[in-house]
């Protein structure tokens, strides 16, 4: 039951990712990516991480991708100058290398040198309170640093998109 559910979600996720890369319209790409994020959120639920699943949807689907759509629509660049490809030989090389990576990873995963210990009793490690306790004790410093990072990003984005006024030296 669970494995069937996993396989369906996984196929959906992969399909959405492939469609994202293949779409010629940037808005369609963005939508496929949103579907992919939803698939990953469902997988987080399967992995006992409900908090992350919700964060994934709120931040990725609800904020980041909306920002993408906003910029695409603002620039009116959904079709793009896509056909001008300066490096035509890159595509087949990328495909071959990608396939190689998957095969190697698959080999390494399913023929491991040393067996990996597995926990048969997964407990509620993904519950919000457990995560919060850890986040605000052990990982307090990184947490504060991310807040600074967000502030820097905020200021950076404002500065980058600010129209220089008359008399400004930029």
């Amino acid at each position, binding site marked *: *039951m669970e494995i069937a559910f996993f396989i369906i979600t996984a196929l959906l996720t992969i399909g959405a990712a492939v469609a994202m890369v293949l779409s010629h*319209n940037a*808005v*369609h790409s963005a*939508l496929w990516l*949103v579907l992919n994020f939803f698939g990953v959120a469902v997988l987080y639920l399967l992995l006992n991480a*409900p*908090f992350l*699943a*919700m*964060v994934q*949807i*709120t931040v990725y*689907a*609800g*904020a980041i991708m*909306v*920002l993408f*759509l*906003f910029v695409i*629509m*603002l620039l009116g660049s959904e079709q793009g100058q896509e056909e001008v490809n300066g490096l035509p030989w890159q595509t087949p090389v990328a495909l071959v290398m990608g396939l190689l990576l998957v095969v190697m990873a698959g080999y390494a995963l399913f023929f491991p040198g040393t067996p990996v210990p597995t926990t048969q009793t997964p407990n509620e490690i993904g*519950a*919000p*309170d457990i995560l919060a306790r850890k986040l605000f004790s052990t990982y307090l410093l990184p947490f504060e640093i991310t807040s600074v990072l967000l502030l820097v990003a905020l200021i950076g984005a404002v500065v980058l998109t600010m129209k220089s006024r008359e008399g400004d030296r930029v």
Partner: protein
Amino acid sequence: MNIWVRLITLLFVSLILFLATTTAFAYLTLFERRILARLQNRVGPNRAGPGGFFQPLADALKLFFKEEITPAQADKAVYTIAPALAMIPAIVLFAVIPFGAYLDLSFLLGEAARYVPIQLADVNVGVLFLLAVTSIGVYGVTLGGWSSNNKYSMLGGIRAAAQMVSYELALGLSILVAIMLTTTPTTQEAANASLCSLMFGQQPVAEISALSTCRIVESQGGWWNIFKPTGLLAFGIFWLASTAEVVRAPFDLVEAEQELVGGFNTEYSSMKFALFFMAEYIKLIAISAIGVVLFLGGWRGPGVDLLYSLGYPNVAGLVSLGYFLLKLIAFLFFSIWVRATLPRFKYNQLMDLGWKRLLPISLGLVAVTAVFAVVTQDMNPYIAGLFGGFRR
């Protein structure tokens, strides 16, 4: 219980909820038109049936038989799914809303149905779920505007994206205040099994997350959150931000008729238009219900606890449902009243309000709530409850 039986029960309850929501939508439109008319010294629709009772039916029938037109240059696929993308998040929001306490159906369905919650599901990330689903509600409007290939629609769509993302911050922070006011169960509460743990499996009370919507309502047994000083301010912010989030007047710039023809739904007709229309109203009901749950004490009201302790669980359950609906209608009435009273904001005013007023105020409020909660935690329980003092 067998997993399939559970699944079918859930599907059945979902279906009931779906039908209830769509009916509520239909009559909300009538309610709104009648109230608006009254506020503007008109009569309002009163011809179809007694007092206009069948007006929603007539409207639906009319929309069904309208010709459906797709603009030639529209992005067909996106144009078609956009109304559904608007509708689905609006409906899904109802999954975690506690409409009432519980019913006792053991005389009908056996011992397993002694505590049947009037709520579809309670998850330990309930409030986050609400935020997540609200945040994806923007897609329908934005994509509808973009895919129509009409500059007015497109402007509406762009406005929607910017507006909803901006106001989500203030909305999230005001909800955070409500969560901070949700106290952890006391040892005494833990000893008497809490309602939430009775209704949704026997998890220990101490482990019920403060993000669970059921727990939030339960903890408002003393003071409702709106009666707490910080809660009242947070409620004000929540109301403004949620009105902007569901793009209702006075924040309805997305479909400003005077400047954008009709906004994002200009090119939509027939059932696709009806879906957008429905989504808008259902989102309004949903966000009002969230407000009732978070700030107005949900299903709580005088007499519910008494009826439970006297041993009339079914009467008490129905009374609690009645309280919830009463508060919901009051909330909706207020929203309609504001729509009839206030003119539309300008776009720069909207952005100023969101980013320069609501966001700093709500950030400050979160800090103040936290300080109060720590300072008052060892005081008199009534004062501690008033400021959401948490207990260790």
